[in-house]
């Protein structure tokens, strides 16, 4: 007991205060609650609803395909059905579901009161809910997209797909990606900075490693698709010819950008699910995971290698064979880390006799199905085989084996596994076996025959087929299987409705698991924050749960009188400071709803209402940010003789870390834009002008000088802040804004004679000017926010998070703009 940070009994009012501070608001104000456990539960539930909705679309398609020459569904609707099924499953179910599981489980698993940016999670969730529901409803009015979930132009260009259907996808899904990135920021900083003391990187639960890898992959993969959707929307709305081969664009550019996101996306979905499996298996065998280090290595290695696979979706596009072979080899290489994990799970399951619970059954089902999907993946990675199987039902079978096997089965296993930590009752084991049996049998009956249907030549995405090709019986069997699978899911829904009760005492650690999410908890997460010394702390210390609940570990109360989280060092988990969080308010909710409205109204070309909604959304965000930099208060004692500050700025603050992650997002989007420029130059150099036709060198020199001076002005503002000279601070900040905007203005003016519609080159040049303008606008907003705070006395040498964040982003923007100037003005001169 002497090692406990707070060994003495705790005052009785302490727990009451903790409960009062973290209590959910009542009535309508519940919408303002941002606690990650609350938002996470809604997030998972919403993702599951989208799974059901997209599943219904699949059943309609299977009904249509059950018999040949069926006229139940017209081709126009069928196109919408398969596009919506794929899009909703990938963007509104799979990614949000795994991200939601992270938001829901990570705080407890890491021993955190909450992750550092819960209001960002709330914003991401509400934007996703509103945007996702409106997007889904488009199918009821015939406005759903029809171009398939990967939306290849020129099919989706304005010429071949007029109307707003494809815009619905580009704007609706494009902005839901922003939600995913917001969640990734929360998860990266949360996993690295809010772990319980003693939880070193080597003691982190595998699920946390999986979510960290997931989030890092989102940061590097999703910007490519955001850029791609932006380019296609610019082409559709303003005829900037990025993808129009007749004007120096290239439709294959879309495929490169989309699949640079789209292939890592498969692992973005799979890795968290693999993390869930790595949590379930040790518990069910009551032994630590075999090869923990190898499993972590496999996760990180997959995170890298999965970025070298995108062209294997493009084997039939005429790329040189040697290039295809590079990607074929990479596609086979990535199966090695997946294999390491599979062997680690098998080895763990073999260590002792596993308990055949419902989560175990889903893990076994996952292993069977996912390994089959992986093997057909290796088959498809062989270029000659892919030539035969491309765009046939073989690919449909493969991708469902990978995605349903690799993500849906582990997710169901995880729901059965973790629901006792969230609900008064566990789900029924007896019903669970039926759910698993129906889903497993139904899945294999539905999808295994599709391998044969595909090899027999049936193309995907056809609304019907003629009798007599040998496809009839196979399709009928697939349809029967799909309905059996659906019956399993329906049974799960019934059992969930009967038994899931989130209020009150939880069923608790019914499996005898060893990780922190099974500690007793309330809305405030754990009563006190434990010291972690191993992978399964609950197995090593049988008294841990009691001592945590009695407040004998760190931070047993709320010493600053409000919501707070303990921020720890990223490597060794040593306590660093207390992060104070403002009480719930309406700003994240309002910002999210109006962000969604902005994008959805743009879809219908309602520009004025859209802009009005955008202004409200930005206003709400600024109001939200206003409360995030409270005045410092005295340091607090968290127990064990440790006193930590209650305010932090600079590189140690979580806020700084979030801006660093945000700049990584921006940099990867910029990287995708640079790739696009160089790609179009490679395939269509004829539209690149001679050096004599470029704007005079004076333009980029003037623009570069002005933006560098903006950086210098911001640095001067930093010195004025430290010296306490408010007048100089305000003047320097205002100068920085003016200089940056002027610099970007010069760059825009440099290209006044070039129409962005003229060629792929011209569109690219204007794209870089537009990006510079957008970033300058964001910098101006951040700096003006800083000016207003400084003028009202809320920024000084100590209380300076708003200033530090703006400065970091401005410096990044200046560096990015200089790179753009070098590319746009220097590259044609150098290459020409």
């Amino acid at each position, binding site marked *: 007991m002497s090692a406990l940070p707070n060994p003495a009994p705790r005052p009785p009012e302490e727990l009451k205060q903790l409960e009062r501070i973290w209590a959910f608001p009542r009535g309508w104000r519940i919408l303002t609650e941002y606690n990650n456990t609350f938002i996470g539960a809604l997030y998972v539930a919403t993702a599951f609803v989208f799974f059901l909705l997209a599943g219904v679309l699949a059943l309609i398609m299977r009904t249509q395909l059950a018999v040949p020459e069926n006229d139940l569904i017209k081709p126009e609707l069928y196109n919408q059905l398969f596009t919506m099924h794929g899009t909703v499953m990938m963007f509104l179910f799979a990614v949000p579901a795994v991200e939601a599981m992270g938001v829901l489980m990570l705080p407890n698993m890491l021993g955190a009161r909450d992750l550092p940016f819960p209001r960002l999670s709330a914003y991401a969730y509400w934007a996703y809910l509103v945007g996702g529901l409106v997007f889904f409803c488009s199918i009821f009015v015939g406005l759903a997209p029809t171009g398939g979930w990967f939306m290849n132009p020129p099919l989706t260009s304005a010429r071949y797909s007029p109307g707003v259907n494809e815009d619905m996808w580009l704007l609706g899904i494009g902005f839901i990606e922003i939600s995913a990135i917001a969640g990734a920021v929360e998860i990266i900083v949360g996993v690295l900075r809010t772990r319980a003391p003693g939880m070193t*990187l080597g003691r982190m639960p595998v699920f946390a490693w999986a979510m960290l890898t997931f989030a890092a992959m989102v940061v590097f993969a999703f910007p490519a698709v955001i850029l791609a959707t932006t380019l296609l929307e610019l082409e559709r709305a303003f005829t900037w010819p990025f993808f129009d081969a007749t004007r120096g664009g290239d439709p294959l550019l879309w495929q490169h950008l989309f699949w640079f996101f789209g292939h890592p996306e498969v692992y973005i979905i799979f890795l968290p699910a693999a993390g869930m499996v790595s949590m379930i298996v040790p518990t069910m065998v009551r032994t630590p995971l075999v090869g923990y280090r190898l499993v972590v290595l496999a996760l990180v290695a997959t*995170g*890298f290698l999965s970025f070298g696979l995108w*062209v294997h979706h493009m084997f039939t596009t005429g790329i040189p064979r040697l290039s295809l072979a590079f990607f074929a080899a990479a596609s*086979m290489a990535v199966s090695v880390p997946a294999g390491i994990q599979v062997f680690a799970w098998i080895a763990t399951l073999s260590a002792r006799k596993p308990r055949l619970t419902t989560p175990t059954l889903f893990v076994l089902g996952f292993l069977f199905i996912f390994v089959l999907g992986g093997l057909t993946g290796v088959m498809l990675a062989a270029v000659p085989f892919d030539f035969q199987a491309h765009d046939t039902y073989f690919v449909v079978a493969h991708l469902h084996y990978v995605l349903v096997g690799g993500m849906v089965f582990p997710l169901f296993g995880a729901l059965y596994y973790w629901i006792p930590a969230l609900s008064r009752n566990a789900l029924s084991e007896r019903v669970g076996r039926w759910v698993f049996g129906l889903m497993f049998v139904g899945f294999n009956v539905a999808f295994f025959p599709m391998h044969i249907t595909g090899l027999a030549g049936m193309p995907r995405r056809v609304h019907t087929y003629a009798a007599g090709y040998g496809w009839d019986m196979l399709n009928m069997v697939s349809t029967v299987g799909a309905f059996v699978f659906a019956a399993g899911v329906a049974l799960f829904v019934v059992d969930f409705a009967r038994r899931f009760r989130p209020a009150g005492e939880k069923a608790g650690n019914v499996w005898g698991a060893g990780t922190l999410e099974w500690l007793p908890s309330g809305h405030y997460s754990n009563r006190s924050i434990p010291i972690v010394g191993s992978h399964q702390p609950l197995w090593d210390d049988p008294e841990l749960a009691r001592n945590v609940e009695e407040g004998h570990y760190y931070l047993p109360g709320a010493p600053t009188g409000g919501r707070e989280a303990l921020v720890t060092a990223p490597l060794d988990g040593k306590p660093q400071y207390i992060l104070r969080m403002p009480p719930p308010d309406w700003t994240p909710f309002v910002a999210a709803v109006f962000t969604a409205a902005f994008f959805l109204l743009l879809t219908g070309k309602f520009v004025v209402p859209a802009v009005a909604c955008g202004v409200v959304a930005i206003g709400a965000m600024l109001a939200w940010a206003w409360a995030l930099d409270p005045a410092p208060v005295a340091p607090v004692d968290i127990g064990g003789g440790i006193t930590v500050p209650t305010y932090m700025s600079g590189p140690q603050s979580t806020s700084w870390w979030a801006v660093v992650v945000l700049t990584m997002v921006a940099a990867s989007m910029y990287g995708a834009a640079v790739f696009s420029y160089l790609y179009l130059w*490679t395939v269509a150099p004829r539209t690149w002008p001679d050096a004599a036709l470029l704007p005079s060198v004076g333009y980029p020199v003037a623009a570069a000088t002005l933006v560098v001076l903006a950086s210098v002005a911001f640095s001067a503002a930093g010195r004025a802040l430290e010296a306490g000279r408010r007048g100089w601070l305000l003047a320097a900040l205002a100068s920085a804004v003016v200089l940056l905007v002027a610099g970007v203005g010069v760059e825009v003016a440099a290209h006044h004679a070039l129409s962005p519609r003229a060629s792929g080159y011209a569109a690219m040049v204007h794209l870089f000017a537009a990006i510079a303008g957008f970033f300058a606008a964001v910098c101006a907003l951040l700096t003006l926010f800083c000016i207003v705070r400084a003028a009202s006395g809320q920024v000084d040498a100590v209380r300076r998070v708003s200033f530090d964040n703006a400065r970091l982003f401005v410096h990044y923007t200046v560096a990015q703009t200089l790179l753009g100037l070098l590319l746009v003005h220097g590259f044609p001169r150098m290459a020409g």
Partner: protein
Amino acid sequence: MRPGPFATTVLRVTSGGFVWVLHFATIYGFTALACARGAAGVVPWLVTIATLAAAGACAAILFAAWKDARAFERWLSKGLAAAALLAILLESMPLLLVPPCA
């Protein structure tokens, strides 16, 4: 925590992965460019040089991480460099089998 040790650790742990990224981007990007510009002859040289350089970099990372392989982060750094080395060699092998730009 100073930002230094964490940033250094992240760079050290992921260095093998970034070597793989650079190698892959180089062989893919320059092969595409060389083929688009009718310069198939440079491809074998380029891939060979890039592969030797990347393999050397992975070997250097492995050597640097060898000393204290018990520490988790060092082990991870070594493991990722080894995985990257294998992937780099595997991905370069098609050069021996497939003509460039065909």
